[in-house]
């Protein structure tokens, strides 16, 4: 058997340090902020999952005789107006806030991805219709679009998730469409077409993996927006309803006692800020690690 003159690059022929996922991992490891954020988010997720086991009290347990207690060894973050343990509510709140964020991102990204793939791959009138609808949706400031959807669906956590998710669809559609337009001109896509691959196979087997990186970065950054928006809706009384332990709703409950009991608002506020900050820093780190321009320079 004769040897190929120009061997096709495979995992064996590419030096290990140049394999794209490994380059990304190395870049991410160098970014201390992103690593710290990832560690924080992993711990937060664990806390959210094991909240029932970790929480010292029932988050909904009312104890009127213990209302507005200062943080102490018994109640680490104090108690609220109804004597509920704020620390326990915070732990359960992590569950709600992370779930809201993730569900909203899924609601935004899955239709956004599908619509973007259809628009980018098919082009023509389908592309025109999809993108004009997206342009219209983008004409609304995000939170206002979410507000108007909540207005129709009614206040509540599931509706807030749907509203925040729908408001996020256009950014995914736009990003995916533009990425598909670039990828479909690449040689490997043309080759797949030339050997007779079906349209759906080209889209899912060849184009989708190529555009996955920017979508992942957008999804991470979008998670921060979703958590902030959903907690804003809860703060306005349009998201999670009392007595649900949601961070935005907890802040709203503590508003009236800002002077007497500032710890009611301090703990959930700090929790939202740290979570959103971590997600943002991780998203930034991922973007830097996945940016091919930076990679070639590095």
């Amino acid at each position, binding site marked *: 058997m004769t040897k190929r003159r120009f061997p096709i690059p495979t995992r064996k022929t590419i030096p290990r340090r140049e394999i794209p996922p490994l380059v990304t991992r190395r870049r991410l490891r160098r970014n201390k902020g992103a690593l710290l954020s990832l560690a924080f988010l992993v711990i937060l997720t664990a806390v959210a999952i094991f909240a029932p086991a970790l929480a010292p009290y029932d988050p909904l347990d009312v104890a009127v005789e213990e209302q507005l207690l200062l943080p102490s060894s018994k109640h680490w973050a104090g108690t609220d107006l109804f004597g509920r343990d704020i620390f326990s509510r915070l732990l359960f709140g992590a569950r709600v806030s992370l779930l809201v964020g993730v569900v909203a991102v899924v609601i935004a990204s899955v239709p956004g991805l599908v619509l973007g793939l259809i628009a980018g791959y098919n082009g023509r009138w389908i592309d025109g219709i999809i993108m004009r609808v997206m342009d219209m949706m983008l004409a609304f400031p995000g939170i206002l679009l979410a507000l108007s959807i909540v*207005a129709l669906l*009614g206040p509540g956590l599931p509706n807030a998730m749907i509203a925040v998710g729908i408001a996020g669809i256009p950014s995914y559609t736009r990003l995916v469409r533009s990425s598909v337009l670039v990828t479909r001109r690449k040689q490997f896509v043309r080759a797949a077409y030339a050997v007779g691959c079906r349209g759906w196979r080209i889209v899912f087997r060849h184009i989708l993996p190529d555009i996955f990186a920017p979508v992942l970065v957008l999804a991470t950054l979008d998670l921060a927006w979703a958590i902030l928006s959903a907690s804003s809706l809860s703060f306005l009384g*349009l998201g999670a309803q009392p007595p649900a332990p949601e961070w935005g709703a907890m802040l709203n409950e503590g508003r009236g006692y800002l002077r007497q009991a500032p710890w009611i608002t301090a703990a959930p506020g700090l929790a939202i800020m740290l979570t959103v900050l971590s997600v943002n820093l991780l998203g930034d780190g991922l973007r830097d690690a996945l940016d091919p321009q930076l990679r070639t320079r590095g």
Partner: protein
Amino acid sequence: MLQYIGRRLITSIPVLWGVTTLVFLMMHLLPGDPAELMMAESGGSSQSIAQLSHQLGLDDPLYVQYGRFLANALRGDLGRSIFTNRPVTQTILEQLPHTVQLAVAAMMVAIIIGTALGIAAALNRNTWVDSLCVTIAVAGASVPIFWSGLLLILLFSSLLHWLPATGQGSLKHLIMPATVLGLASSGSIARLVRSSMLEVLGQEYITAARSKGLSERLVVCRHALKNALIPVITVMGLQFGYLLGGTVVTETVFSRQGLGWLVVDAILWKDFPVVQGSVLLAAAIYTLMNLLIDISYAIIDPRIRYD
């Protein structure tokens, strides 16, 4: 230039039409009968629901309702509030100046803070100053407006008694809301100014300016900054949308009157004509603001006109 403005004006007409259509469809196609939802609070009978449906024209075919809505919207008639029975347009126009005042003040805060952080980060690239500025920028975008607002109220109103916690009417009332809203928006501007400054500082004309013996201050202020700020104008359009949305929360925290406060109140009372009108107007303002920014960008950077 006039040709460019004309072209941009024409392309924004379908968007405005689309926005109007989308608002109409949202109110009519999403699950839930608006009349039933509106009467739910007061526990209205089926007769009163039918009466309200008729009054709002909801019993007409969808295309008739759409035609009427579009024709009325073109005349500036957005219907009447269910609760106050006042024209929605008038109600909105009364609240609009408060929101515009807040959004403009917040935009100024965002530009000042964002530009300062961006320049400081770019001039001290890869040092602790750079890291600090970038972290402040990301942190600013991560703090929920409602929390930073409450913290400022606690500090400057409850403890120090320097600024009024709620209300409006004077500059003192505007300082805290504008700072809170502007800070949240300054992060994106800071990051953009930083990357834009880094790009400009690497250009040949900067090297030429330095080789002429100009002081670093002159090089930065007169040569680099002017060009670095051009991309910031484009992001201002997006930021204005963010600020417009942010006013909803800010107005609630500081108990200020305005469009945001009106929308939240209307949602809670299920006053759909007011929600519909306010959202439509906010989207129209946002679209027109983006149009103005596109035009101003073309004036500042003539290359855009020929794209």
